[in-house]
């Protein structure tokens, strides 16, 4: 187990290194300069580029950047003079993360509840309502859902705030928008695998033994049926914790996703790189955590992990 974790961390660091390298060269090939904006004369741009070391050959820039990165210094932003990239991440990440965790909890709770309901209900109407809702939630793009919710709840009914992230009420709309897609996937996974599980003989046998319906579903079938959902939590966490530009821009939340898109349009090289590496780390850690959680809960996965894979 320990060996497996160690191996995953080493491959993770290696892929982060390759990711940083590939992104570094790609973004430097993008035409444009971080200092080119409207009425700035070419001489000023040249002077600024010299000041920030952008006129040096690309290779030496690369080595000095990677050296700094290894020492834990992701550099300073070009478009926000005097602000470190680490500082920007420290400022934006808490907002994105708190929103992402709220959305994740919402998605897991509603997705699981509706999935169970869909699997155990005997009413056809309930089943088809849940299936339709699931299809809608998975198929409508995030920004469309955001506009719809915004229009109905903030502009027409005026019950929820339009933008920002100040009070718990501010969290409702963005969290719901973000949670829609993962909730639909979780609902689908829970419902399908629980339905398959309930058809198995041990469930029928447990019922024949006289166990209550609730006990059969919750303590016997659900435990087995929930593994696919746990495996999905990694990608879901990665998606929710790196921030969505659409949601952050529509609800005016100064989070990570918005900062990232702005940094690309501004050609803010160090910020793009810093955010890419940071997001890569979050994705790798989220997947690692999920795999370890699955291995801890499911002896079959644990055996596979400590066996030939490790």
């Amino acid at each position, binding site marked *: 187990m320990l060996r497996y974790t160690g191996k995953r961390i080493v491959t993770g660091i290696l892929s982060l290194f390759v*990711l940083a390298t590939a992104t570094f060269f*790609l973004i430097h090939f*993008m035409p444009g300069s971080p200092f080119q904006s409207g009425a700035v004369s070419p001489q000023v741009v040249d002077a600024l580029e010299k000041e920030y070391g952008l006129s040096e050959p690309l290779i030496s820039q690369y080595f000095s950047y990677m050296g700094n990165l290894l020492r834990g210094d992701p550099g300073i932003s070009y478009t926000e003079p005097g602000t470190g990239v680490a500082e920007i991440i420290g400022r934006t990440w808490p907002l994105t993360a708190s929103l992402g965790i709220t959305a994740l909890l919402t998605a897991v709770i509603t997705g699981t509840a509706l999935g169970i309901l869909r699997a155990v209900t005997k009413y056809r109407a309930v089943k088809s309502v849940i299936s339709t809702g699931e299809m809608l939630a998975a*198929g409508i793009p995030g920004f469309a859902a955001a506009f719809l919710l915004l229009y109905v709840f903030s502009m027409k009914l005026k019950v929820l705030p339009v933008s920002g992230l100040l009070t718990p009420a501010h969290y409702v709309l963005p969290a719901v928008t973000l949670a829609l897609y993962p909730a639909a996937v979780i609902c689908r996974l829970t419902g399908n695998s629980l339905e398959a599980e*309930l058809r198995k003989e041990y469930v029928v046998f447990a*019922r024949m033994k006289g166990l209550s319906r609730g006990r059969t579903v919750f303590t016997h079938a659900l435990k087995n049926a929930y593994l696919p959902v746990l495996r999905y939590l990694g990608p879901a966490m990665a998606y929710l914790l790196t921030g969505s530009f659409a949601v952050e821009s529509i609800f005016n939340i100064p989070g990570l996703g918005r900062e990232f898109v702005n940094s690309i*349009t501004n050609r803010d090289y160090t910020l793009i790189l810093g955010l890419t590496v940071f997001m890569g780390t979050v*994705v790798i850690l989220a997947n690692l955590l999920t795999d370890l959680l699955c291995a801890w809960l499911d002896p079959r996965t644990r055996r596979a992990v400590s066996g030939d894979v490790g």
Partner: protein
Amino acid sequence: MRNIMFRFRGGRAKAAPQKQEKSEYRKAGRKLLVYGIILGIWALLAVLVPLFWPFSYSEQNADIRNQAISLTHWFGTDRFGRDLFARVWYGAGISLLVGISSALINGMAGILAGAFSGWLGGIADMALMRIGDVISSIPSMIYVILIMLAAGSGPGSIILGLCVAGWVDMARIVRGEILRLKETDFACAAKMEGLSSMRILFRHLLPNAAGPIVVNLIFLIPQAIFTESFLSFLGVGIAAPAASLGTIIQEARSQMALCPWQMACSLAVLCVMLLCLNAAGSVLEDRIGSAGEDRTLYRLDNIIADKSRPE
């Protein structure tokens, strides 16, 4: 006791599985037909409206700015006085074009990469998959901007930009399927027959992976449309005067409080399109998910029957 049997569907499944299965199958077929018809109407409108509608998608007219829905302007007009009905369907056409062509290119590239990766195994497999990991973890926005600045903005650049990283998912799926099928008895039998690798791979293994491949190919279309509309929404997509649904939605955003129909119409067209594609994909997925294993077995039986026949 009867109660238990009826509450969980498994209890009575033995009695009449055939009939139930058949009606489920038919129902899925009907659903597919409905989605297909809607998508057909959408495609038809996207082709015909720009050709025959009296208003052009790009002509501005200051006298008719921000008009509401009326008989002359079915979706109203935007803040430059452009007819939205013409614009939305023109945009839908661009979105469909981008979605379908990039899904096809990504599908082909992914199938080839995945098939070779799974078949060859070893270092080639590892190299291809790691390259895929790195490529897919760089945001597609960077690729699109790069290509756009190099080749000019237009649908072609967007399609190319989506194709840089889009093949990776398909490659992973195909690779998994090939890895599974490689170990089956019929692959082994084909190898013993002395068939060439290429023939086994393309004539025997890939056709058996057709189910997951088709499902994924269909899911690639709404994904591409979604990414394209999202990029256009950010302003790095299709440049004016051309428009895709994403650009139209972005333009309608500033008028949302006063003229909500501008956004409603374009959003509705986009959402119906994406929903139909996604739903068609899931119906197919369910259908193949239940039939996939049986089909492999069937094929295996066929080959064994073939080989055991005295020559």
